[in-house]
C-alpha cells in the first residue's frame, strides 16, 4: 500500500532543508528587516470573498478543468 504520509526520516530531512535555507540565506548576508517592503501575494482569489456554496466550489473546479484542458495537462483522478 502506498504511504502518503511522509515518514519520520523524510520529515527530518525536510526540517533540515528548511534550517539549511535559513542558514544559507544568513551566510549570503540576506536578512530581511520586518519593515522592508515585501512583494505582495499575487494569488488572485478565484471568487471575491471566498467560497460560500457548492455552486461556488463547482465554478472553481470548472475553471481549473478548463485551464488544464487549455494547457493539455492530464486530468486529476475523480474522487
Amino acid at each position, binding site marked *: 500500500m502506498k504511504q502518503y504520509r511522509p515518514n519520520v526520516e523524510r520529515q527530518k530531512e525536510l*526540517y533540515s532543508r528548511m*534550517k539549511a535555507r535559513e542558514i544559507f540565506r544568513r551566510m549570503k548576508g540576506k536578512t530581511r528587516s520586518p519593515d522592508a517592503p515585501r512583494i*505582495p*501575494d*499575487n*494569488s488572485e482569489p478565484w471568487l471575491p470573498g471566498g467560497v460560500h456554496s457548492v455552486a461556488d466550489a463547482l465554478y472553481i473546479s470548472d475553471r481549473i478543468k478548463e485551464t488544464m484542458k487549455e494547457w493539455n495537462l492530464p486530468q486529476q483522478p475523480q474522487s
Partner: protein
Amino acid sequence: MVLGGLAVISHGLSRVTHDADCWLDPTISIEDWCNAVKDLLVKWARLRLVSIGNWSEMPPADLAGYIEDFGVVRVLGATQPFDIFRRPNEMEVSGFEEVWERATPLTDGTRLPDVVDLLITKQDTGRPRDTYDIQFLEGKAEEMYLERLPKASSGEALKMLERFLNPKVAAAAAAHSDPKVRETGMKFLRELADAGDPFARDLLAAVGGA
C-alpha cells in the same frame, strides 16, 4: 524571462497555474522599462494595469512609482492574467544579466531560469503555497549537485556551493577531494548540527565529522 508557476511547470512539476509571470529586462532605466510596459497597452487596447493585492486599476502614469515600491505589476485583458516583474522576490535588478546567462533559451525569445535561480525567487515569500514548489526545485537542484559536485574541480565546486547548499550537498562536499570544498561542507553541516538538527547530525557522523 519566464518565472513563477509556468517556470516551475517547465522544470517538470505537474501543477496548475492561473497566471503567467515574467521578469522583463530591468537593466534599462525605470523610465524605459515603464515605457516598454505602456507600449503593450497601446498595442493591445484591451490590456490594463492592475495593482497586485488590492486589484484596483492603475493609471499608466502611476506605474513608475508603484514598480519602485513593489517590483511587480499585473496586466489584465489577455487570455491569462500576466504579472510583469522588474525586481522579483530575492533578486536584484543588477543580477538580471547573470540569471539570463544561466537561463535556457526557449524558442519564442524568452528564457527559462535555471533551477537554483528559480528556487531563490520562491524562497522567503511568506506564502505557504510556495512550499511545494520549493520542495520540488530543491530536490532537482540537489540531484543535479550530487551528480556534478564529486567530479567538479575545486574552483567549480566552490562556485557551485556559493549558489546552493543543503544538507546532502554539504555532505557530498565534505567527501570531496579538495580540502577547501571539504571544509565548506563540514562547516555547514556542523552549523546545522549545532542548531540541533538531527538529520545534519547523522550526516556529519557519516562523513566522520561528529
